[in-house]
């Protein structure tokens, strides 16, 4: 029997810098973002990105946190005990057993976006596995206003996975495939994920207000169909970054950990 193809499955991976000599580093800080769908771990050495991983969240948050950090530390020679301070964030943030502190993902995404896309970013959209947040922040990445839509899961990462399976289309192709539809389809309450997302988000942003520089974090930022429709609806382009949008939360958490270390934590 042919093996069933898992259309929803996206690529898990890890990365570490070949240049940074972590043993010479003074501050080793980590951020762990345990989301509803994916988990990331990121390690900073003296404020520089040293290693990270991006994995699927399992049914058990502490397990997922361990897997994520082990993935990031793979082949680096660094061990968990070398990390001086760890901040947990995301849906499962209270279940990161080795974290020194838990910080809400809203604060972490704003801080991460500030690092990834620069201090001019004022509006951050975190489009994640099961909810969507519109965040307004200042030039230091500090949150000044936010709104969250966590009542409706239409158009979230999880919804996108379900849709990929239903349509038997690999998840990475869903966004591009949506271009084949010339006209926007009739509203189908909120059950059509690809289109529902952009509609939802523009409603959220209507309350927050969008300023010139806006940036999208979270897994949905990798779906060009959603991003293009949002840009069209808002009339402005999202700022692009060389970093993976999915690591923003873990990066922000690690940046907070690094700041807390500098403050003598």
């Amino acid at each position, binding site marked *: 029997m042919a093996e069933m193809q898992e259309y929803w499955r996206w690529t898990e991976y890890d990365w570490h810098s070949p240049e940074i000599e972590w043993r010479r580093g003074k501050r080793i800080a980590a951020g762990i973002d345990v989301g509803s769908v994916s988990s990331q771990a990121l390690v900073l050495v003296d404020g520089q990105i040293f290693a990270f991983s991006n994995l699927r969240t399992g049914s058990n948050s502490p397990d997922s946190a361990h897997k994520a950090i082990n993935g990031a530390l793979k082949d680096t020679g660094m061990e968990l005990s070398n990390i001086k301070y760890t901040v947990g964030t995301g849906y499962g943030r209270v279940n990161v057993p080795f974290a020194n502190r838990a910080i*809400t993902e809203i604060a972490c995404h704003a801080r991460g976006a500030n690092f990834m896309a620069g201090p001019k970013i004022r509006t951050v959209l975190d489009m994640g596995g099961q909810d969507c947040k519109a965040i307004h922040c200042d030039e230091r990445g500090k949150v*000044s*206003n936010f709104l969250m839509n*966590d*009542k409706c899961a239409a158009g979230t990462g999880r919804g996108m996975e379900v849709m990929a399976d239903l349509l038997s289309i690999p998840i990475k192709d869903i966004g591009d495939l949506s271009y084949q539809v010339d006209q926007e389809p009739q509203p189908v309450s909120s059950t059509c994920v690809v289109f529902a997302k952009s509609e939802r988000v523009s409603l959220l942003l209507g309350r927050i207000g969008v300023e010139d520089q806006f940036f999208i974090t979270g897994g949905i930022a990798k779906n060009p169909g959603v991003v293009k429709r949002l840009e069209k609806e808002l009339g402005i382009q999202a700022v692009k970054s060389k970093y993976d949008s999915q690591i923003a939360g873990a990066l922000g958490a690690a940046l907070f950990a690094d700041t807390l270390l500098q403050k003598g934590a």
Partner: protein
Amino acid sequence: MIANYGYKDGSGEFFISIDTDKCDSCADCVPACPAKVLEMATDEYDPLSEKTVATVREEERKKIKYTCAPCKPASGRGVLPCMAACAPGAIAHSW
């Protein structure tokens, strides 16, 4: 910052907004609310600050339309007790 707690659904927008810069940590709003919606906590959106501010309790955030309803009769609505108790005027309701 302005922290918006609540949601928007088919029947309207239901948000309690707390201006954490205006909030002076006095906690007078906490006993003023007959439904015990508010509590004091460190500002979870500004992790580097130690200040405690009024927040809407987590379990109330998805049902405040109903929890706040007794204070919002269709006619003869006065000043809401939470807003009346807040001297710096940090609390606002969207509906």
